[in-house]
């Protein structure tokens, strides 16, 4: 196996497949390399495919063809303590009509479909191929060696969409090792539950879906838990910072077990049948932890480029990945037409990303990664909220306090003045 292409996209995930699709449509020869025996079989995420304009532009009727589960209609943020839950739910007719804000999907199904679209456009999909080494000639990346179906593949440009661990980006010297403090571990249990039970339990009809984020459900570790409804099942799981996980000395699946046994969670998953268990890392360092995005003959896209952020309310990655894949493809098309594959030319990719919502959002929330390291958010504030709610509603013959006094007393007792100021500054700098 030794072949030459204009571009090799490593990884048939959302970034790689959409890059390959864009390149193939422009008439460029493109090879889409996938280490699984089918695209998507190595891929996992919480469950929500966000509305992504570039996907709709390239495949205008995508929602009519892609294997989607439910559109997310109901968003809930819930704070848990041992026996309480304080929740805020947003439901609106505006989330119940096109353009839908997001869909729950299964990655083996969705990624498989997207890679097939790239193939249909003319990309060559090679499965069972793990890209092992970059081929570098005179300082210029000019292909990859493959482990699986052994051999070499050559190209003018390599788009490394090889995921969060991107061994290729590391080899190229564009980034160092992932830091545990800037990396999240996501684990997920897929549960089967009849469609009508889900609709009744979550108050949904037709294809409406629910998305619940939980804070305070990770055994004191920095992180959160999630629940998404699929058509006939639930995706439940958690994300924790790796440094926080190792400091706890507790296996992640035990934390998941405890979460599922929480009284307010147990009733949501009651009667559900375990179908599949999965795990994946998430680049959670935000803007400040991003690698260099390009080199001579090489561009990084998706998780490989560290394009992911969370600010406690939004958790976005797949939409950033697909957008970066398309922008990398646009840059590659321009480079091929100019016959210039140098890092200097490929800096156009960075300019395109900077001008898009991708880097703008990553910059807007560049301080959020720091905020997510404030332990109190996960350990103490859920308790503060629960105690306030309990005092508000509890009728016990004791004289009541006005709200401000109640809040002040609870915060000072649980958190302390010094911490509340420090947390306030961090949260303020991140979100306000």
């Amino acid at each position, binding site marked *: 196996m030794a072949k030459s292409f204009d571009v090799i996209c490593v990884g048939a995930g959302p970034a790689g497949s959409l890059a390959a699709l864009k390149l193939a449509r422009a008439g460029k020869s493109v090879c889409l390399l996938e280490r699984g025996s089918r695209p998507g079989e190595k891929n*996992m995420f919480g469950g929500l495919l966000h509305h992504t304009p570039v996907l709709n532009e390239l495949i205008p009727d995508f929602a009519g063809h892609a294997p989607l589960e439910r559109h997310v209609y109901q968003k809930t943020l819930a704070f848990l303590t041992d026996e309480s839950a304080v929740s805020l739910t947003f439901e609106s007719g505006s989330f119940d009509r096109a353009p839908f804000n997001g869909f729950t999907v299964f990655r083996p199904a969705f990624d498989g479909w997207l890679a097939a679209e790239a193939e249909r456009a003319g990309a060559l999909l090679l*499965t069972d191929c793990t890209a092992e080494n970059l081929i570098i000639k005179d300082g210029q990346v000019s292909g990859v060696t493959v*482990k699986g179906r052994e051999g070499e593949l050559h190209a003018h440009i390599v788009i490394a969409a090889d995921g969060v661990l991107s*061994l290729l980006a590391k080899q190229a010297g564009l980034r160092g090792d992932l830091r545990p403090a800037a990396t999240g*571990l996501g684990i997920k249990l*897929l549960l089967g539950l009849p469609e009508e039970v889900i609709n009744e339990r979550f108050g949904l009809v037709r294809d409406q879906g629910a998305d619940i984020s939980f804070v305070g459900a990770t055994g004191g570790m920095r992180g959160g838990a999630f629940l998404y409804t699929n058509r006939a099942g639930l995706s439940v799981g958690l994300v924790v910072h*790796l440094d926080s996980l190792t400091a706890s000395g507790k296996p992640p699946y035990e934390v998941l077990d405890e979460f599922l046994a929480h009284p307010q969670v147990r009733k949501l998953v009651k009667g559900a049948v*375990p179908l599949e268990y*999965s*795990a994946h890392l998430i680049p959670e360092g935000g803007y400040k932890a991003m690698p260099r995005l390009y080199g001579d003959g090489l561009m990084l896209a998706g998780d490989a480029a560290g394009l992911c952020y969370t600010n406690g309310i939004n958790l976005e990655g797949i939409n950033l990945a697909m957008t970066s894949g398309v922008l990398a493809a646009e840059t590659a098309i321009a480079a091929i037409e100019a016959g210039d594959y140098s890092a200097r030319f490929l800096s156009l990719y960075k300019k395109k990303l900077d001008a898009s919502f991708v880097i703008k959002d990553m910059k807007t929330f560049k301080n959020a990664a720091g905020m997510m390291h404030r332990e109190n958010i996960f350990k103490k504030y859920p308790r503060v909220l629960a105690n306030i709610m309990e005092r508000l509603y509890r009728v016990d013959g004791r004289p009541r306090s006005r709200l401000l006094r109640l809040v002040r007393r609870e915060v000072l007792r649980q958190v302390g003045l010094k911490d509340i100021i420090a947390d306030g500054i961090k949260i303020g700098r991140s979100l306000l």
Partner: protein
Amino acid sequence: MNIEALTQLAQFEVDDRAHIVVDKDICRTCDHRACVDACPANCYTWDEATRLLSIVYETCLECGTCYCVCDKGALDWGYPRGGYGVRYRLT
């Protein structure tokens, strides 16, 4: 659910070549062995009696947690050869 039952829910195409190899000498002197508890598939076991760290790569979910938390350079870590390893069907 216990972890054995959880990992059995996934499908694996097991390669006879291990994609992760541990340096048992380095692991013997490690002061934290974070891989043992952090691995979401419970692939690592530390035997205090023999002072040996062992790995079952066959049920590895290829997430990279061990690679990330090992700060001793004890892991020769790579992805499995193309076509081998975990095969998610639904997730």
